[in-house]
C-alpha cells in the first residue's frame, strides 16, 4: 500500500501553471527521487503535499488522509497532515533564535503536548542518532551546512511522520557529505520511513533512491 498517492495534481502561482497533472505513488520504506531542472515544479509538488501551497486541482492522499483542491488546510486537518508529513527545506529554515536541541523539541512540547523533559530526551537521542548530538546547544548560525541539515532532519522526524519530504538536500553539502547523507536516508528508509527527495543531483539520486522520477515544465516526463 502506498504512503503517498498523488492524482492529477495541478498547482498554480497566480496565473502561472507550475504543476500540471502530476500523478505518482510511493510505497512504505521507499525513497523516490524527483529530478528535473530548476523551475520544473519539483519543489512545488513537495510544498503542495506539505500543505504550504494550495492545490488547484487533483488530490493528494498521505497515509489515508486526503487533501483536495481549495484553500490551504487549517485546524484539525493541518494537524493531521503534519502528523504524517515532515519537511526538510533546502535552506533548512532552523528557528534562528533557538538552539539545535530546542529546534527539535519545540513541536513535541507545543504541538504533541509531551512533557518537556521527555521531549528533550527524545530530541537529544534523535540528534545523536543523526550524528550531531555534540552540537545540541549550538544556535543555527554556528552550525555548518551539513550539521544544520541533520538538525533539520531531526526536527522533521521528531514528531514521527511516516513520510519525509526533502528539498534539494545536497545543495549545502560537499561531495563527501553527500555520500554520508545518502547512507543516512537509506537507513531511515530501512527503518520504515518513506522519503520523497527533490534534487537535480543525478549522482546523489542514483546513490540513494530506489526510484527516480523526472519532471519537466510541471509534468512528469518519465
Amino acid at each position, binding site marked *: 500500500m502506498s504512503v503517498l498517492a498523488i492524482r492529477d495534481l495541478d498547482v498554480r502561482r497566480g496565473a502561472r501553471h507550475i504543476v500540471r497533472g502530476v500523478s505518482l505513488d510511493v510505497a512504505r520504506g521507499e525513497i523516490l527521487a524527483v529530478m528535473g531542472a530548476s523551475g520544473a515544479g519539483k519543489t512545488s509538488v513537495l510544498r503542495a503535499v506539505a500543505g504550504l501551497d494550495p492545490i488547484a486541482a487533483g488530490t493528494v492522499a498521505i497515509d489515508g488522509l486526503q487533501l483536495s483542491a481549495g484553500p490551504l488546510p487549517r485546524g484539525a486537518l493541518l494537524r493531521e497532515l503534519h502528523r504524517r508529513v515532515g*519537511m526538510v*527545506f533546502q535552506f533548512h*529554515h532552523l528557528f534562528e*533564535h533557538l538552539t539545535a536541541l530546542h529546534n527539535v523539541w*519545540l513541536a513535541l512540547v507545543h504541538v504533541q503536548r509531551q512533557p518537556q523533559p521527555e521531549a528533550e530526551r527524545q530530541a537529544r537521542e534523535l540528534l545523536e542518532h543523526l550524528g550531531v548530538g555534540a552540537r545540541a546547544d549550538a*544556535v543555527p548560525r554556528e552550525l555548518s551546512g551539513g550539521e544544520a541539515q541533520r538538525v533539520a532532519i531531526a526536527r522533521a522526524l521528531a*514528531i514521527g511522520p511516516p513520510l519525509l519530504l526533502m528539498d534539494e538536500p545536497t545543495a549545502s553539502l560537499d561531495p563527501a557529505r553527500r555520500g554520508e547523507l545518502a547512507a543516512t536516508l537509506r537507513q531511515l528508509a530501512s527503518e520504515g520511513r518513506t522519503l520523497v527527495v527533490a534534487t537535480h543531483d543525478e549522482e546523489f539520486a542514483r546513490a540513494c533512491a530506489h526510484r527516480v522520477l523526472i519532471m519537466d515544465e510541471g509534468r512528469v516526463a518519465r
Partner: protein
Amino acid sequence: MAHEWRFRIIPRARARAVVCVCLAALVGATAAAQTPELRWGGDAEGGAPFVEADPGDPARVVGFEVDIAQLLADGLGRTPRFIQTGFTTIDASVARGDFDIGLSGIEDSFARRTRLAVTVPYYRFREILTVRAADAPRYRTLADLRGRRVATLAATLAFDLLTEAEKEYGVIVVPYEDDVHPYTDLAVGRVDAVLLDEVLAERGVRRHPGLTNQPASQGVGYYVGILAAENTALRNQIDSILKQAMRDGRLEAIFQRWKMWNDDQRNLYARVTADESGPPPQPQGSAAQLSVWDATLRYLPSLVTATVITLVLSVLSMALAIAIGVVIASGRVYGPAPLKAVLTAWVELIRGTPLLLQLFVIYYGLATVVQLPAFLAALIGLGLNYGAYESEIYRSALESVPPGQLDAARTLGFSDRQTLMLIRGPQALRLALAPMTNDFVALLKDSSLVSLITVVELTKQTTIFASNIGSWFVPGLLCAALYLLLSLPISHLARRLERTWRRA
C-alpha cells in the same frame, strides 16, 4: 503701536504678496534704524487685560501692558516693539538681551531683584481664592482646604503661598502653565479652588458664572518691569517715567481704561512717588533669599520626587505603548483588510498630530465628558502616542522575519498563534529592541510635555526651581544629570541584551 505688520495673503496673489512682504521688511528695517526701538517682551497667551492679540486684528496686541510699553517708549523717545515670549522664559530672555524690558504681569520677587534690574512697582494686587459658588461657605481660606486640590500658576507668588499652605494645612498644589485652565478645571470640578492674583481671579469669575471670589486677601504682590542686571541706567530712566506717570495720572488713566483702578494703587503710587530714594515695597517670601547651594539642597528632595514621577510615568506609558503597539501590529499583519485600513488610519492620525495637542484633547477637551486625573490622562496620552510608533516598529519587525521560518513552523503543525508566540514574535523582538530602546529614551524626555496638564515631573520641577532662584545654571545641570541617570542604564541594559542575543 506705531510699528505694526499686517499681511493678508491671498493665494491668487501670492507672488505679489511675497514682493510686498520683502518691501515692507525693507521699509520696516529702515524705520527701525531711524527711531530707536524699545523692545519689550511679554506673553500674549496671558490674555486680557495684560497682553493679548487684538480680537479685531490678531496681528496687533492690546492690554494694559501694551499701554504701559507705549508710555515708556514715549518717555524715552523710542518706538515700542512687542516680542512674544513664553511667560516662564521672560526672565531668561531679558537677561540674555532678547528685549529691553519684560512687561507681562511680572511679579516682584527676591529672585528677580537678585538677578535682574527691576523697576518700581506699578500695580499692587491681592492673591484671591476662587471657589465654586456652592463651596463658598466652606472654603473661605487656605486652612479650609486641607486635602483639597488648589490650582495656581507655577513659579508665582501664589505658588509659593500654596507650597507653604501645603506644609501648613495639607492642601494639594496643582500648578498650571497658563492662567485660563485653572478656572475651567475649577468649573468642571477637577480642582476645588484657585489661588491667583485678583486680576486673573476677576477674569476667571467673569468667564465662569458658577465661580465666586472670596473677599479675603491671601497675600499681596506687585507687578514690575524687568531688565537685564547691567541695564540699570535704562531702568532708572524708566523708573522716573513711571513715577512721573503716577504723579500726572497717566498710569491711573491706563488702569481706569482697563477697569483695574482701585485705592490700593492710589496708596501704592503715593508711597512710590513720595519716597524717591527709599526701598520699594518688599515682595513676600521666596527661595531666592537662600544661596544657590542652600536652595539646591532645599529643592533636591522635590527634584528626586519629580524624577520618580518621570520614571514611573515613562515606564507605565511605555508598557501601555508596547501593549497597544502589539495589538495594532498584530491587527495590521494578521487582520482582515477593513481592520488593517482602520488601524493604518489610526496610526497615521496619531503620528501626524502633535503629542501636545493629544494631551490637551485628552485632558481638557474630554473634560466635559470624562474628567481624567492628570496623571492618568498623561499616561493615556503618552501610551496612545507611543503605541502608534511602537506598532510600526513591531509591524516592520514581524514582516522582516523570513517567510521560511513561518513555512517551517507550519510544517511542524504550529497554529498561527503558536507561530507568533514561539517563533515570529521572539525573532521580531530581537529586531525591535534597538528602536524600542530609542523610543523609551525619547519617551522619558517627551514626558516633560505632561507638565502642561499639571503633572509636576522632572522638567516642571526644574522650571519651578529655576524661576524661584532666578537662574537656570544649577537647576539645568541637575535636571540633565537626573535624566541621564534614568536613560543611561536603559541604553546600557538594551546593549547588553542585544549582545547576549547576538551570541545566543
